């Protein structure tokens, strides 16, 4: 069975298409950045600090009642929402300075079962604001370090123009994925940071595979333009790019639908990232390298001993 014809010859990188693709990428990035700047992210308590409770009620929970009970118990800025099932409720509070955690916990527990229900406290998290900001810093640090190391590796294995292309594609993926969370107001927690880094890994995998073929074709198809060599390579890799994307999406959809509420943001980030990453390794990475005027010469290692040339017939 084949999804893609044996020899596709789609002109991915023609001057006009490339411009359109770059325009789309630029638009996605700008929209993401604008949303990040204006709307920001729905940070989870991992980053903001605060208190989070996941509570299971025996019957469908009345959110308004829970909210008003908590308000009158002295917690004005409380968020109450359903979590997956009708019976499951997520309660979120900002940090409660000056109060002993154990007292806050007892008060919360008492208030939540005000009607005498037996509740199942599934999860209780107290994160201080200090730890929250540290976790945020470390997450950002991880992103930057990963991008830098990848840049160096690709530079050693290929050449700096490819490095620039790869990192541009990765930054594009990371920004658009995080932007997606901002635009749709999805909860952004530590697992999402992990997902964004996994997206970087995945997209990079794609990009490097494409670059590898481009390098091969630069030598195999001597004399053709860089644009053509790249286009041939992308066409040759098209089946692989799409199939790997598809199998990865298959498992991710399984994870999203079956993995439960707490892993959902992670799954969403990966699904968005894999789609964007597949697109970016076709367009963004190669287009950036082309824009930097990459050519076969860039990949030929300089001959160290000139006398060798004379020996050639």
């Amino acid at each position, binding site marked *: *069975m084949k999804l893609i014809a*044996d020899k596709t010859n789609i002109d991915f990188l023609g001057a006009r298409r490339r411009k359109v693709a770059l325009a789309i990428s630029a638009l996605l990035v700008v929209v993401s950045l604008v949303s990040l700047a204006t709307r920001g992210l729905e940070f989870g308590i991992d980053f903001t600090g605060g208190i989070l409770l*996941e509570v*299971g009620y025996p019957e469908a929970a009345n959110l308004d009642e829970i909210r008003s009970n908590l308000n009158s118990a002295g917690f004005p800025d409380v968020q109450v929402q359903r979590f997956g099932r009708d019976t499951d409720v997520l309660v979120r509070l900002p940090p409660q*300075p*000056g109060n002993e*955690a*154990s007292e806050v*916990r*007892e008060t919360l527990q008492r208030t939540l079962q005000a009607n005498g229900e037996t509740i*199942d*406290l*599934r*999860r*209780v*998290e*107290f994160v*201080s604001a*200090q*730890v929250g900001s540290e976790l945020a810093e*470390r*997450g950002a*640090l*991880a992103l930057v370090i*990963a991008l830098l*190391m*990848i840049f160096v*590796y690709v530079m050693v294995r290929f050449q700096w123009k490819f490095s620039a292309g790869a990192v541009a594609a990765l930054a594009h993926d990371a920004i658009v994925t995080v932007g997606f969370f901002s635009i749709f107001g999805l909860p952004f927690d*530590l*697992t999402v*940071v*992990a997902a964004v880094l*996994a997206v970087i*890994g*995945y997209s*990079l*995998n*794609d990009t*490097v*595979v494409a*670059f*590898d073929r481009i390098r*091969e074709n630069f030598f195999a198809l001597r004399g053709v333009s860089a644009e053509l060599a790249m286009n041939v390579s992308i066409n040759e*890799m098209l*089946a*692989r790019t799409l*199939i790997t994307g598809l*199998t*990865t*999406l*298959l*498992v*991710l959809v*399984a*994870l999203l639908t*079956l*993995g439960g509420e*707490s*892993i959902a943001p*992670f799954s969403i980030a990966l699904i968005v990232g894999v789609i964007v990453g597949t697109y970016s390794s076709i367009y963004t990475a190669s287009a950036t390298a082309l824009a930097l005027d990459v050519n076969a010469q860039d990949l030929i290692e300089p001959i160290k001993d000139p006398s060798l040339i004379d020996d050639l017939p």
Partner: protein
Amino acid sequence: MNNYPWWLNTLVLVILMAACLLALPNIYGSVEAVQIADADGTAYGAAKREEFVRVVESAGITPEASYLHDGRVVIRFESTADQETAGERLRSQYSRQANVATTLTPKLPKWVRDLGLSPMSLGLDLRGGVYVLLEVDMNTAIESRMALYEQDFDERLREAKIRHRVDLTDRVVTIRLTGAADVQAARAIIERADPDVLVLDGEDGQSLTVRMTETQIKDRQDFAIEQNLTTLRNRVNQLGVAEPLVQRQGVDRIVVQLPGVQDPNQLNKILTATATLEFRLVDQSGDEPGSRRYPGRGAEDAQVLKRQVIASGDQIIDAKSGFSEGQPAVFITLDSAGGERMLQTTMENLNKPMSSVFIETRRETVMRNGVEEQRTVKIEEVINTATIRGVFKNEEVINTATIRGVFKNSFQITGLTPIEARDLALLLRAGALAAPVYKIDERTIGPSLGQDNIDRGFNAIKIGFLAVIIFMAIYYKAFGLIANVALFSNLIFIVAMLSFLQASLTLPGIAGIVLTVGMAVDANVLIFERIREEITAGASPQNAIHSGYEKALSSITDANITTLIAAIVLFGVGTGPIKGFAITLMLGIITSMFTAIVGTRAIVNLVFGGRKLASIPV
């Protein structure tokens, strides 16, 4: 063409079988058990195991199995009821000598245990429990050390009859003296007392300033952390939790993980408690230098107490709670130095009152100029005061009203509620914290959520895996089936490595496995697409297989190494959930490279290698 030498085939087979063996313990499920560990950490032997089993059997319960594991005795039961009854019986019989914990343990057959194999350990988000991140207050650690210096210098100078005044501000002890000769003499005394401290002459030529060197401060901080780790381990062990984890994290943090614990409230009091005792003489004149007024706890009267401490919490080697004349009491035993000092003080101070001071440190958040600020508050309260009234050789009792005799090593104090007495005894027994600790992160996962997470996670793996397998079989026919064998082996390899490394599997870790399943086929896809290309280009089937594998190799390595870089960074920089994800991702990348490049090649060679083929099913 396309034949592996026999040894390579054998190697692949041996590796696969080893992986199967390592992964095997995970299929047995778990069973109720009681774990008994020696309170002093000594490893138990076979005799102890038999003794414990006899105790359990005397309660009318037949254990399902019992064995030694890491110097602990594990006894397994058929039901939760049996487990609880046996646990209570053991606890009441061995309360002082052993830590008894009820837990779930893997139901491994004897031969698997004998091989030293164990299943993957589950993270707290999968098994339920409490995670606490504590911060050690290093400032207080340094300041309390400086306070000891201050007291020590003061005493030494007084003994040497040098007129002086000492004062401690901002970690600097200033000693005011009169005359150059005294300055010289005082300097010599201080340098003899501690040759490492930094002693500087004051600008006026009439004083000395003493501070700790950078090295001393660092040593003191390391000491505080190490001491706190030991103390916290002792405290946690006394709570009867199976497999607790107490670990240093970074410069000034300590992580405590307690699987299975559901109520963090009791735990918090025990973990962060700094409660300790000090014994001081009452300053009856009220105006001795250095004397201070201490408020009373509850109905107790406030007292002015002398500067010198007769004995303090770190000299207490044992403490038990109980009742004395109907009142809750803590029975205390001092070490020999503390005992000597106590004996001498009480002999010299007959008929004078002495107080027990209860000390506790808390961190409070205060608002200063609209900014939240953490402030350390030390609470010191007199819990009882008694008069030293007589000399009794071996009668060693204090009660609320009077100190009846000269007491040496052991005595009792009252003036607390029963719960306070019990907690204080536990804390004194486990040792004091060298510096206060504060909780900055606490996560509790209930058992139902843990089970939910396991069920959902594995369900996602199953369905995702199935979808990929079906797709591959349809799309790449026989080669797809071979890739599926590799994919399945890949799962076994990941589970085997996780079991071997005993890295905790967490929910993000499961997500990492799911992701790996999706990505692991990538290497196969690369190879198979390449083979197809070669065939389209007119290569013979055998040549197509050969060059397909060969040419795909550099892409596969480059792609996987770059992903590995991302995973390693995640592991190095990440915390908590990120780390769990990074571990499975790293393992998955490594195992999938092996299965795709060597594993499937071995099968392809066995099936198709070395014979004439008209076409290949790819």
